[in-house]
């Protein structure tokens, strides 16, 4: 058994960095604090790589399967004898893989931010928040039990809130951060309820116990039925609700596009590569329960994923803000991952989808981070977010151009780039499971290629736009991460995921099915071709198309009015029809009752004080009458 206890430093180091930068950051020179944060992340990256290497290549396997290793665990809060929140480090293929993803992307983003955020006010605050985020995210993936995951889940949410609202004087950023937090918080409510139901029925939070395929937890849950579905299904659906929120799946996706108000490195780190895949990770983490005990919930996962991927891809085709296009693209790609999980089964070849999902998560992290960072470099150079104000940038930003192109090709699934492999596996998994889902995903693949190249051509080709300042290539702190990530995007496809990350830890035999691979490449090329025709040079085709499908275009452009629907629900229903009436009710009915009691008492005493008239004779009269009455009473009536 290899000693993994040093892994505690992986989450702990950024936490210490956060405390340091948070408390003393304003006293340090900004540059020093930036370097401190980046240095800390560098150490973590090294540690993660060491861990990954040790875990995958030197740890013992049992029956050819990777084991779950609890490197460290201590009780943090005891609820009952069986239920307690532990904090610890759980290593298994997916958590180790996530470690690599997070630390790599995070490290790149840190380096990038050194350049990108250079002259911003609150530089040290930015790095403090980034450290907090890294801490939470690492803690999340290393969680040994579902409650630890919930804890870090919330912390991730709040660091996302802080980072989106980094420009806190900008009202739109404040709104976006608030929205992101509240929407995900609402989803987390589902997560929490799911945890409660799950823990009530299984009496444990521990992942290893919960997800043991032969364990009692999985066996028990199916028995108890509530409203037609087993409690296990209910709890898994609720847990998935948390994942839907964090991963910006329909219908909780509305916060993600707005979250682009945050600084671009943040978008790259949190809203593309790491945090938003937490939902996928959550489902993957609980996968044995989904697969073995709650197939209905797994179906829900698949359909939510498929719908979101299509929905987001359609919207992405119409947006003009490049970060928003990327945001919708992210949603679409995460939909892919969800779908892949949803169509997977536990163990054996059934588990192809699981493997594909994790694979795609990995490659997606690379190329999406690359895309965002590239977008950041473009924005940095042009000072605009809108592709309508861009064009012909390939001449000014060569490095950005090349890396961006690589990323676009990757996401479009062109071999031999990494995206091809992972996407192909997903399509294969869908094909073997449900033909309808496959069809959707197939269409989405084409759409993806189209909107990515629409973006690419509009920015780097298209019309030659005049700029106020000649755009300049970003400094080395920004381009170096781009190049590293580009290399990652190109080559990460050769990582043998089928040997490393599978649903049951055993090796999964899979090969590229040409029957699926060739059409998928073809549709990718088709999408690129269409985009080439429409956006390579200025042309009237897009406008004509938009005019033809006027309503469809308008709906898609306005994101199918989901935002407005939410706004209606929150503003109108919550505020106007619940909250205001509650406040009114409280002031006027409840408090009014109290006040009425008081004023009735007061009125009553005002009335009866007339007895105290100061008229001596009245008093005497009452006294004498009373005396006589009493006399009558005692003499005649009270026998």
């Amino acid at each position, binding site marked *: 058994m290899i000693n993994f206890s040093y892994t505690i430093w992986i989450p702990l180091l950024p936490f210490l960095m956060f405390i340091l930068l948070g408390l003393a950051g304003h006293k340090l020179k900004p540059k020093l604090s930036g370097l401190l944060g980046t240095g800390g992340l560098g150490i973590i990256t090294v540690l993660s790589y060491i861990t990954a290497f040790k875990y995958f290549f030197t740890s013992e396997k049992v029956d050819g399967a990777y084991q779950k290793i609890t490197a460290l665990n201590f009780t943090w809060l005891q609820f009952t004898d069986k239920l307690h929140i532990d904090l610890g480090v759980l290593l298994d293929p997916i958590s180790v893989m996530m470690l690599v993803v997070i630390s790599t992307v995070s490290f790149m983003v840190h380096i990038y931010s050194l350049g990108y955020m250079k002259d911003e006010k609150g530089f040290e605050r930015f790095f403090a928040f980034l450290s907090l985020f890294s801490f939470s995210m690492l803690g999340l993936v290393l969680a040994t039990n579902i409650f630890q995951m919930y804890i870090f889940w919330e912390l991730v949410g709040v660091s996302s809130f802080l980072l989106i609202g980094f420009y806190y004087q900008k009202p739109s950023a404040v709104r976006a951060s608030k929205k992101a937090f509240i929407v995900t918080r609402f989803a987390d409510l589902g997560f929490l309820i799911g945890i409660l139901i799950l823990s009530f029925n299984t009496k444990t939070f521990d992942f290893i116990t919960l997800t043991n395929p032969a364990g009692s937890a999985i066996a028990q849950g199916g028995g108890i039925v509530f409203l037609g579905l087993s409690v296990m299904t209910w709890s898994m659906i609720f847990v998935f609700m948390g994942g839907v929120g964090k991963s910006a799946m329909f219908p909780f996706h509305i916060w993600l596009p707005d979250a682009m108000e945050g600084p671009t490195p943040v978008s790259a780190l949190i809203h593309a590569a790491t945090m938003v895949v937490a939902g996928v990770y959550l489902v993957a983490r609980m996968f044995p329960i989904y697969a073995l005990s709650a197939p209905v919930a797994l179906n829900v996962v698949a359909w939510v994923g498929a719908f979101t991927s299509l929905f987001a891809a359609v919207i992405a085709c119409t947006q003009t803000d490049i970060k928003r296009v990327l945001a919708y693209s992210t949603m679409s790609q995460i939909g892919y991952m969800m779908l892949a999980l949803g169509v997977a089964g536990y163990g054996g070849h059934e588990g192809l989808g699981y493997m594909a999902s994790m694979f795609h998560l990995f490659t997606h992290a690379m190329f999406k981070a690359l895309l965002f960072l590239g977008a950041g470099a473009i924005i940095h150079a042009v000072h605009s977010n809108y592709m309508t104000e861009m064009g012909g940038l390939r001449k000014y930003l060569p490095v950005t151009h090349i890396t961006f192109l690589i990323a676009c090709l990757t996401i479009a699934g062109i071999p031999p780039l990494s995206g091809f492999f992972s996407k192909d596996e997903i399509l294969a998994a869908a094909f073997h499971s449900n033909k309808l889902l496959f069809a959707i995903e197939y269409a989405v693949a084409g759409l993806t290629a189209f909107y990515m190249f629409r973006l690419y051509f509009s920015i780097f080709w298209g019309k030659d736009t005049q700029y106020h300042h000649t755009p300049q290539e970003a400094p080395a702190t920004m381009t170096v991460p781009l190049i590293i990530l580009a290399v990652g995007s190109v080559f990460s496809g050769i990582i043998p995921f089928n040997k490393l990350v599978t649903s049951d830890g055993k090796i999964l035999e899979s090969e590229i099915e040409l029957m699926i691979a060739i059409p998928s490449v073809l549709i990718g090329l088709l999408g690129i071709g269409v985009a080439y025709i429409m956006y390579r040079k200025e042309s009237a085709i897009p406008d004509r198309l938009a005019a033809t499908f006027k309503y469809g275009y308008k709906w898609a452009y306005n994101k199918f009015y989901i935002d407005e629907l939410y706004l209606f629900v929150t503003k109108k229903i919550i505020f106007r029809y619940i909250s205001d009436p509650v406040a009114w009710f409280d002031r006027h009915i409840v408090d009014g009752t109290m006040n009425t009691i008081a004023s009735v008492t007061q009125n009553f005493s005002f009335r009866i004080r007339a007895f105290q008239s100061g008229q001596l*004779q009245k008093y005497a*009269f009452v006294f*004498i*009458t009373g*005396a*006589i009455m009493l*006399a*009558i009473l005692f*003499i005649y009536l009270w026998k």
Partner: protein
Amino acid sequence: MASIMFILFSAMIIVFSILTVTSRKILRAAVYLLFVLVSTSGLYFMLNYQFLAAVQLTLYAGGIVVLIIFSILLTSHISQKFESSGWKKNIFSAIAAITGAILSIITILDYRFSATNEAAKEVNMRLIGKSLLSVDYDGYVLPFEVISVLLLAAMVAAIVVAKKGAPKTIGLPKINQE
């Protein structure tokens, strides 16, 4: 003889009592009160309490009534007529008074009084004087002393209270103008 006397006295008492409380002229009321008090002392004579009858005459008829008349002179016109008080008040008061009276009378008539057979004591001045200053079983020296202190206190109090020049008088005394 005795019953005639009794009837006479009680008729005077009742008539003049009623006149006292109903007369609309205050000085007349005072005079009627005097008659009541004098008749009462007559009753005391009938009951063989000569000393008390004398006290009644001097103290009540002589002292208190004079005091009352003086205060009337100080505060009212002699000929001032009261406006009659509200009929409601009168009727209710009368009902209360009559009910009370009837109730009491019925009770009195119902009750069988039983006298002792002990020999009556001759009440003479010597006995009264001795009793007042005696500390025996039948002695009343303590109430006697208390009453004397009370009288003194009342005298002082009357002077203090009636003394002119209390700081917060609202209206000036207008006795002289009237």
